[in-house]
């Protein structure tokens, strides 16, 4: 069923990280939504659930504002907001919604004016505008741009640190990637670990940005252009060969940047030190791989004949994960996808070489497809809802996973899911979903 021809179904378990929650990753920030009251309801309720509402305010538009524009109303509201807040935020994002794309508020001019009025506050214009979902700057691209554009390089030379961009939560610290970076003397930075705005700013001094998800590419290009911060793609992979290739790509980049040589120099003899690093890195990777292999075997045994269903909310690339499961001998039966690229290698593999069913979860016919109950295991809450699976792995966009340790985390969750049947409504509520 083609996406563009269909009315879109909204699953009751739809949600995850919306504009509000991503913006809230900016420490010491506040958000002011300037929109019809309706546009703010889901974000506000989600923020209350996550304990963030004290950093979120609204200026509700009325018909007269829509007709005559609302630049002045924004200035007045910011004046009032900053007067009434107990503590002045370091960053204020002024969000507008879909209708502003048609009204055409000059966001840059608004930000300039506010910056003149309040030079101690950093202002950003946010766009919660799903009407632009098929443009080159959909909401996810624009919000990440707002977050990471606050990084500022103020050191003459970069510091030995890498930033992971585009993942909502930091990767698990027990993984081999942390060990490998430590071997290189590299700190891993993530906006979710920043407690102050200053810490986020200082991420601008890191020597490399690792892009974990595609929507951050635009801001990464901007940071390279404006601040000279280099970047490479490092999406979450599950296939063993792909993981090893990804590590090789990262090391090659460091090598190109001279980072490995610098570390090696500390040890005295360059060649010996380089050899030492490579040998040690191989040992770490090999140990992690063995652990992941064992985790897969254990999970496969625990899963048995139960069908597996994966969805697009659990993984950035559900087809890649489904292909991995199939190759590893898991009984993967269905992928619930939102966007389908028929030229994608893994999609073609699933369609041409397996009997895995691909279901468009936004299609209007989904109301006739969902099941009351199923013995299988759903990975992702939308798959859980539609499939009726009794066993559920609650995960959102590969969270915390990276490298072989990521495979281990996924397998652990899979094994655990077999042990109990869930009350899905409870799981959804506990997940604190935000549409």
């Amino acid at each position, binding site marked *: 069923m083609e996406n563009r021809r269909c009315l*879109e179904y909204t699953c009751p378990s*739809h949600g995850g990280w919306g504009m509000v929650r991503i913006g809230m990753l900016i420490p010491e920030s506040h958000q002011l939504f300037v929109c019809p009251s*309706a*546009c703010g309801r889901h974000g506000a309720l989600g923020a209350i659930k996550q304990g963030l509402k004290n950093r979120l305010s609204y*200026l509700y538009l009325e018909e007269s504002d829509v007709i005559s524009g609302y630049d002045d109303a924004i200035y007045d*509201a910011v004046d009032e907001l900053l007067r009434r807040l107990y503590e002045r935020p370091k960053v204020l994002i002024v969000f507008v919604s*879909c209708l502003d794309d048609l009204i055409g508020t000059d966001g840059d001019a608004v930000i300039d004016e506010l910056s003149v009025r309040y030079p101690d506050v950093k202002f950003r214009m946010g766009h919660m505008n799903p*009407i632009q979902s098929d443009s080159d700057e959909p909401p996810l691209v624009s919000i990440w741009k707002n977050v990471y554009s606050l990084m500022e390089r103020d050191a003459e030379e970069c510091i030995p640190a890498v930033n992971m961009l585009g993942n909502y939560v930091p990767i698990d610290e027990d993984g081999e990637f942390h060990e490998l970076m430590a071997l290189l003397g590299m700190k891993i930075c993530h906006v979710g670990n920043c407690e102050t705005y200053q810490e986020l700013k200082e991420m601008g001094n890191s020597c490399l940005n690792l892009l974990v998800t595609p929507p951050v590419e635009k801001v990464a290009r901007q940071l390279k252009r404006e601040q000279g911060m280099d970047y490479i793609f490092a999406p979450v992979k599950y296939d063993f060969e792909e993981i090893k290739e990804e590590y090789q790509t990262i090391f090659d980049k460091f090598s190109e940047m001279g980072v490995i040589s610098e570390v090696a120099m500390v040890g005295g003899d360059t060649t010996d030190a380089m050899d030492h690093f490579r040998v040690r890195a191989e040992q770490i990777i090999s140990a992690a791989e063995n652990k992941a292999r064992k985790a897969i075997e254990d999970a496969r045994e625990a899963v048995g004949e139960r069908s597996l269903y994966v969805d697009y909310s659990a993984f950035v690339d559900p087809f890649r994960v489904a292909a991995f499961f199939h190759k590893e001998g898991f009984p993967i039966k269905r992928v619930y996808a939102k966007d389908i690229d028929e030229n994608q290698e893994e999609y073609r593999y699933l369609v041409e070489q397996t009997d895995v069913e691909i279901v468009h979860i936004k299609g209007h016919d989904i109301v006739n497809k969902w099941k009351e109950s199923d013995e299988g295991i759903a990975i992702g809450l939308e798959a859980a809802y539609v499939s009726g699976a009794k066993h559920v792995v609650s995960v959102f966009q590969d969270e915390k996973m990276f490298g072989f340790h990521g495979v281990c985390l996924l397998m652990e969750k899979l094994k655990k899911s077999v042990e109990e049947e869930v009350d899905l409504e409870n799981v959804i509520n506990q997940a604190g979903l935000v549409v």
Partner: protein
Amino acid sequence: MGKLCMTLPPFSPDYSGVCSALFPFDTITVIHDASGCTGNYTGYDEPRWFRSRSPIYCSGLREIDAILGDDEKLIQKILFALEEIEPEMIALVGSPVPMVIGTDMEGIAAEIESRTGIMSVGFATTGLKYYPQGVEQVYKKVVKRILEESEDRNGENVEVLRFSEGDTDGQSGNGCDTVGPKYRVNILGATPLDFGNSKTMDDLQAFLVENGFEINSALWENVTKEEIASLKYADCNIVVSTSGIELAEYMKKKFGIPFITGLPFGTRYANVWLQKLAERISENSKRNVTEESLCQKEKNSCPDYNDTDKAEKFPIKSGSKVLIIGEQFQANSIRNALEAESEVECTVGGICGWDDNFAEVQDRFLETEEEIVTLLNDGSFDVVIGDPFYEELMKMKKQFYPYAHYAVSSKLGKKHSKSLIEEKLLSVFE
């Protein structure tokens, strides 16, 4: 709500009101938006959405469609869906973007109806207003239309049909002896946006049945066009929120059906309310609704608080000044119930919908967060009853009793979603 709002979430919008009122009908409902508006409704304004097969969709509006005014794309998506779903009705629901570009929701609906032969209705909702206006629009555009079309078609004599199909053997089947036929009542204005996850509607219907009434229609679940058409056969309409008042007035004028507002909260007030309902029917019909014709339970004394000790045992001290913030008709009923049980003085602060005709002098409609804050912190009130989210706005120490309003706190207020029918009134103080 206007101006700056720093604490409360935005309340349920008009398009949620439309969808909520349409939910029990056999309808394909399409919210013409990009995704967020539909997510508001399905995520936070519809407790029935989970495990429902109700076909409520987002049109997937994109900027290029808005700029080009490509209504045909929307029509084609609906026609495609009709290949697999056979509804009695199609509803198109507006959102902020269609408002800005001036989409003719009614015109598109008319076009769809002309192509498919299926009743189609367009709603010019904007997201700038609140849910009662959406519910009212459904009553105006769907219910009235079906009532009028069915009248034209059947040419029935409503007066004759009314009273004629009740239980005439004197046995109601629930242990309630009645004399003669039962009186049929409709319940108007009931949506989960006002009653949330509470059992209020179940309890109200049970209360009416126990007292010898028959529920003609509550427009609450699985409602067919035939059931809507049969609304006119009721003896009285019970209007449980401001959303239903316009339809009730229309039905009074058109079909001569009287109405009563509010709910039978608290044991004493339930008795009074029941008498009012009987009187309203008596005034309007040739028959007298006597106490004998209703199946009355023992209602003359409150089991927990009789006249002598009510001031001592009732959770609110005699002489207290009580502020009740919420849906106006529910708040009025809480006022009536409290004043029947104790010597208290109540003020109602209405949220989202308001009708001056049902307000006391001291009552007021609260349109902004600032107005709510001001009233909550008015030193003259000792006790506040309202949605749990209002407590955060209180700067002065007062007794606060949470009573969830779904259009405010959604599923986050579930713990405080209560039915106050009859003796359950006391649950608000738990």
